[in-house]
């Protein structure tokens, strides 16, 4: 079937089988390889992307059902500058092997946007086998603090 996907601001036309997941459409058809396949079962979170600004497991989402814009980790930075969350992950060493990082970042950005109270609970859909968890929490707190300060100055 013919579908169109808006990915990181670009509209893409694809001809795919109805059973193709958003993750495989991104990775194997559009060469958008930031989202990773760690389990293909919605159990690890490495494939997390945003659809219409909300975090979604792209391995459990059929590409053909996606109507809102998709943002992947490649779409976070703008003008060659890291997104504050990306910078915080670097600053706090919130990654080791980096394979889960794309998904962690997309959930982390959502955590700050949604102003979640329990960050550790919210982030528990993203497994990090290297176990950078305390540093991931520190990175999210760094960005939350920046947002709070920015709000205070406004």
């Amino acid at each position, binding site marked *: 079937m013919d579908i169109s996907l808006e990915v990181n601001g670009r509209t893409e036309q694809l001809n795919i089988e109805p059973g193709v997941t958003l993750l495989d459409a991104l990775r194997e058809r559009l060469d958008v390889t930031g989202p990773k396949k760690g389990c293909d079962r919605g159990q690890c979170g490495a494939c997390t992307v945003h659809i219409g600004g909300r975090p979604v497991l792209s391995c459990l989402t059929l590409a053909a059902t996606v109507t809102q814009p998709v943002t992947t980790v490649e779409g976070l930075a703008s003008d060659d500058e890291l997104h504050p969350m990306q910078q915080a992950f670097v600053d706090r060493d919130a990654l*080791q092997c980096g394979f889960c990082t794309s998904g962690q970042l997309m959930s982390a950005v959502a955590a700050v946007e949604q102003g979640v109270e329990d960050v550790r609970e919210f982030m528990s859909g993203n497994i990090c086998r290297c176990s950078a968890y305390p540093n991931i929490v520190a990175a999210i707190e760094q960005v939350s603090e920046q947002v709070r300060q920015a709000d205070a100055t406004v």
Partner: protein
Amino acid sequence: MTNRVDGPLKVTGQARYGLDHNFPGMVYGYVLTSTIANGEIESMDTTAAKSAPGVIGVYSPFDPLILATPTLGAFGPTWVPLQNREVAYYGQPIGFVVAETFEQARDAAMLVEVGYQQRPALTSLEEGLATAEDAPEVRGGDSAELAILEDGVESIEDAIAASPVVVEHTYRTATQNHAAMEPHSAVAIWDGATLTVYSGNQAAHFQSQEIADALGLEPPAVHAVNPYVGGAFGGKARASAPAFLAAAAAKVLGRPVKAALTREQVFTATAGRAATVQKMTLGAETDGTLIALRHDSWCSTDIGRGFVEPTSHGTSREWYSTKNLAISQKMVPLNIPPTTFMRAPGEAPGSFALESAMDELAIALHMDPIELRLRNNSTAPPGKDLQWSSKHLDECYRIGAARFGWANRTPEGHVDGDWLVGMGTATAMFPALRFPATVEIAFREDETATVGTSGADPGTGLLTVLALVGAESLDIKPDRIDPSLGDSALPPGGLSGGSTATASAGTAIMIAAAKLIDDLLALAASPEGPFTGQEVSYAAGRVLAGGRSMSFGEVLRAAGRKSLSAQGSSAPGEELTKHSFSSFGAQFCEVRVHRWTREARVSRLLGVFDAGRIINDQTARSQLMGGMIWGVSAALHEGLEIEASGRFANADLASYLLPVNADIPADIDVHFVKYPDTLHNAMGAKGIGEIGTVGVAAAVANAIHNATGIRVRHIPIVIEDLLVD
């Protein structure tokens, strides 16, 4: 503190892992696995699969891709799939379907009908204990059974009988899987007679050699590329089934092939950690001095007896000063997937038994567990003349006790609302090793320098270490170093394994740098150089002579050279005849067990480590913290359940429990006592990749006992273990 140099690439999705490579004309392979644990494949009906949409190849033992068995010196032979009809475990790769798309390959694989001649399968470690076999020679060339007795002592039994205080218990640890986030996978593409394989692996030069051996090629014909590896932990030391199959299929089909194991297949079609049973007997004087230490170990192994998890040899062999020592290692071959190295092989499960038993002995002696450990602190491994080169375990405990508030611990824990709170501690040790390594470094005319070796950085921070040690050795700023790894075209070195990469590659960098500086000076003073015939010296990236100086880039440009390179090699040597080497640590854990639900939560962790010189504080801290969380995982989460049929009941990430963020406290403290061990290597670094996980599971179990009075002698510890009537 230096941020990970590949951090920006990893946070923007630009770091391309093996499977992130796509090529025109690429096709997809899907591995088919067995559904019995022991027997012979009688038939495989591939008719429907072959005629399914998009399918271009179906391979099986009846129609195989031809692969020879490679043998790496360090690891022995590596099993390759499809070469015969034997099935030795449930989930063994037995087929490979290649199609135009991933979905087509996966769907077609489901259409293959397999007929088996099934045989009874041995799948239970407990049932196999009675017929356990002696392990072959264990680590360090020691025999499976070893006794070191005081003069006049006839047997370890006599030493135990003569001990005023004795504790004797049996401990059990679960079958585990590395469960790296990146499934084993590969993209293989041929260009004429040369194959390039993109596949996460712990050493590109090994992967190149294994795949070359399997395909009957010379290693230079196989270019293994893995600058980014999505976690390894010992589970990617060898080339994987999808890598062998993709490489061979790509040749036959004349198309690039991408293949990955599913997460479920990763649990069986690779290799994991053995389950263990360990009987500990400790005999002591009433002041805690060890008279006898006996540690008898059994582990599961695959039917090919490919790997022994050396729990006694990895711990009790060396850890304590004891007048009498006896250890043994047996193995129980089962129809289970292969066992292999997994982060702290031997030390991790071994320390659960030894350090739990030490806690039980401390309780029997009414002694503080730290005091008991320091009472038996060793200056050399028992029966060996070679003293520890550098050991500050006592300082680790002193600092750790102060930082953790150990003085507030009571023998019965304390209560905080509905939570029973306890503290536990354990020793951690991991041998300080090096492997041979070669590194090439080069000055370039643009004022930068390269540092390259073939090994891998699966999250360890090795790439950053190459930059830092390169900068220090060349006396220039780290941002002028362009480090590279994960490519078999680079000189062989920096294998990610055995906690060796920093010490091995780092020492080679120092040697290469000294050569390179000599070569630069010779060039500067040569007829083609800018300081012909002058007395020249080097400092901070500049060549000095006769009151003037030039940067290395200027020297190269003046001499008409684009770059100047040198290689350095290092290997373990004479130091092994002079000292024993290890990293040391003291682990502290606070656990809260809910009075009513019996849920156990780790609330604080502290590790104080004596691991020689720390090259990069930030990445070192991260790695040790990750290792400690692995220990929590072993204690409270991980364990494969093996059904009688040999099927793993929980081989996926929903039911093979790994800690998630909410399971782990934000309060994890890592502290270093920094004593460079220059007797081990010139740089003074020892290993940190594995020691973080050692001892933690015992510290958790000891803390649970402190909190509840319940001693659990197996891991993982689950709620049912903590129920009270």
